Structure formats: C-alpha cells, structure tokens
C-alpha cells in the first residue's frame, strides 16, 4: 500500500477518532514507516501550532448586547404566566430522559437509577455554574498558576483543603481558582486552560463510594466525573471529551489518602 493512502488514517488516529483495529494498525505501522511517522509528528506539531498561535475569536460585547435585546424583543408582551417544567428546563426532557430509560433497560437496578438521576442533577448544576461564571466574567478569584498560592487561598475559604495540581506539562496549565456553589454546597473550583478553552474542575469531599456516571453532555457542555480517594472531581468544559477525561482521570489518580 502506498503511504499517501494512509494520510486519512494517520489523521483520524491523531485525533483519537480511529477505531481500535485501525488505531492498532497505525501504531504498528509508524514503528516501521518513517514517512508515516514523520507525517504523524507533523500533525501533532501543527496542532500545537494552532493552539499556540491561532486565535479563537470571541463575540464582541456589542454583538452580545444586540442579540440579547433581540431575544427580549421577540418575547410576547403578555407571556403566559405558567409553563410546564419540561418547557422551562428543556434538558430535563429529551436526552436526559432517554438516558434514564437506557439506564433502566441496561441495569434495572434501583440504586443505579438513583445514581443516574443524581448524576444528571450534578451535571446540570455544574454546567450552570460553569456558564454563569463565564458569562458573568467571574471565572477566577485567585489567578495563579502556582498551586502553592491557589491551595491555601481555597483552604482558607472552605472547610476542606482540596488537592491542587498544575498540569501545564500535560497541556492543562492551571490558571486559577474560585469558590463556587454546587447544589447548595460551597465548593472549590479549579480553573484550567486547554488550548483556547477553559475548564472548570469542581472538587468536593467524597460523598458516597458509588462510582459516578463518568460522562454527561448538557447543553453542549461535557461533564466528566471521577472519584479519587478523598475527593469527588467534576470537570465541565466544551473541550473534547477525551481531553476532559484525561484531565479528570489524572486528578483523581493523584488524589490519594494521606
């Protein structure tokens, strides 16, 4: 096979989108083919270049204000005073409901259903906190990439001291932290950067030993959860789920009992 034909495979493999068989083939192929190995590392270099040098444009404030006004103007002057909950909280319907049904069919175990529902609530709450912080511009209370600054700052404001880790070397530089409210509880939020996206990681003391449902998508944001030895880790962002899972897994693994 001519290696130019492998361009697509190498590219989807570099994206983590090749299936297991193709990925295995690609992994073995680059060990013996210099051309494709160079192709692969050039792709990774290109990605690094994009992350470092290419802007992710942000909507200008004037545009933001204009579309908000349009939304308000489009509402009927006399709105119906009452709407069913399903309409007000649309994400409770559709996807989430289907998710619950899927879980029931797959497991039909009462506790699992409870965990799944609780997981939806946590995911919805976490996404609300994440978007509220970024829309309000209140993302960071303590801006620092130094965990020795962020950790004591958080510990002084909470009744627990969350482990804080800078993962700049792995592509997740720590940019700061804040105290936020998740389901009525004051929790630590660590803010990481990944490429042009910001990631909120909510950290709270482990409530139960039940392994959380690892992945949820709410209103276009991904929520990935994992339990460490002492803390529960909940990451929210619009970065791809693989990167988000890698970050959470890493954080939960570092969280070991003292």
């Amino acid at each position, binding site marked *: 096979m001519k290696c130019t034909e492998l361009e697509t495979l*190498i590219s989807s493999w570099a*994206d983590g989108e090749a299936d297991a068989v193709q990925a295995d083939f690609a992994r073995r192929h680059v060990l013996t083919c210099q051309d494709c190995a160079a192709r692969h590392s050039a792709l990774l270099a290109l990605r690094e*270049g994009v992350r470092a040098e290419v802007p992710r444009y942000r909507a200008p404030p004037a545009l933001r204000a204009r579309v908000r006004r349009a*939304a308000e103007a489009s509402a009927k002057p006399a709105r119906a005073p009452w709407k069913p909950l399903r309409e007000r909280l649309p994400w409770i319907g559709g996807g989430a409901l289907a998710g619950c049904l899927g879980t029931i069919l797959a497991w039909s175990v009462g506790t699992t259903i409870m965990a799944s529902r609780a997981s939806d609530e946590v995911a919805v709450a976490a996404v609300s906190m994440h978007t509220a912080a970024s829309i309000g511009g209140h993302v960071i209370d303590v801006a620092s990439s130094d965990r020795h600054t962020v950790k004591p700052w958080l510990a002084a404001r909470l009744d627990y001291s969350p482990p804080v880790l800078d993962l700049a070397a792995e592509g997740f530089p720590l940019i700061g932290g804040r105290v936020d409210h998740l389901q009525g509880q004051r929790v630590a939020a660590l803010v990481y950067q990944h490429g042009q996206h910001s990631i909120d990681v909510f950290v709270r003391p482990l409530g139960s030993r039940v392994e959380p449902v690892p992945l949820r998508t709410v*209103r276009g944001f991904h929520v990935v959860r994992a339990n460490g030895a002492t803390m529960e880790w909940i990451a929210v962002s619009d970065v791809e789920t693989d990167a988000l899972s890698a970050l959470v897994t890493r954080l939960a693994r570092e969280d070991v009992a003292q």
Partner: protein
Amino acid sequence: MADPRRFEQIVMPHLDAGYNLARWLTRDARDAEDVVQEACLRALKYLDSLTSADARAWFMTIVRNAFYDWLARNRPSEVINDENEAVDAAVDLDSPSPEESAMRADQRRVLSDAIEALPLAYREVFVLREIEELSYKEIARVADIPVGTVMSRLARARGLLQRSPLLHALGATHLGARDEMH
C-alpha cells in the same frame, strides 16, 4: 413565543463558538457579526423545537447555514457545489496568491493566514476540529456530511496546510510544514 431566559441559557453560552466559526468562514469581523446575528434570530425561532442535549452543535449548525445563505447573497462567486470533485478542485478566489502571502507573511499570523487561505469546505472542518474541538460526529452533524467525509476532508485540510507556501516561505517547520511525500 421565544423565551429570553431559554435563549440566555441555551444559546448565549455558545455565542463565542458561533462567532468564532463565522469569523473564520467570512474572514471578516463585521460580516461575522451579521451572520451570527441572523443565526441568533433563527435560533430564537427554533428554540422550542430543540430537543437534543447538544445545544452547541445545534447552534453551530444554525450559524453555518446562516453563513451559506449570507454567502450566496453577498459573495455568490465563492459558492461551490458540494460534490467531492468540485470540493477538490475548488480554488479560493478570494485568497491571496502565494507571492502576496509570503510578502505580508508575519511569523505570528502565518498559520492563521494559511488557514484563511484554505478552501471553505476544508476550512470549516478544520476550524470545527482544531479550534472548536468538536468530535467527528458533531462535525458531521454541523457540516451535514458523513463521518467518512469529515475524516477525508480533515486529512486533506491538514495536508494542504502543511504544504502551504505560506508556511514554507517562513520555514515554519515547527508548525508542521513539510515537503510532499514521494
């Protein structure tokens, strides 16, 4: 009809993502604003019919459609047939020539310029993947093409970028610029 609170919760968090896509597709800040504003009006109209959890892909799809309608009205010469051959043969009329590019090339902007010079069909999948970090499935939904086409267009977009005269003019091998394979 449309509830401003729903709009605030569902669309506003993805306004930057939508604007970024429109900005890369139009290559102009003012045009991007027009496209996003039109997309928001459509989103308001269809908000009640949104049932899936993936509001981001939903809104990006609306932005992309608004862009193509805008393109047909304002730059009809750039509209191309969405057939594979047409896409492959597409020459971007509005993009700078390699000589022009090399002259105005500036180290900081070189990669952005090279992306802007990609033909539309490649530019959109590249931006959705590398800047917006959408999965192949999400890109397929937004761009309304099969996943296999997402794969091949991405590979081709990357190949075009790596062989871009712009990157070579600056010897930007650290950005993945490389020569044609033999």
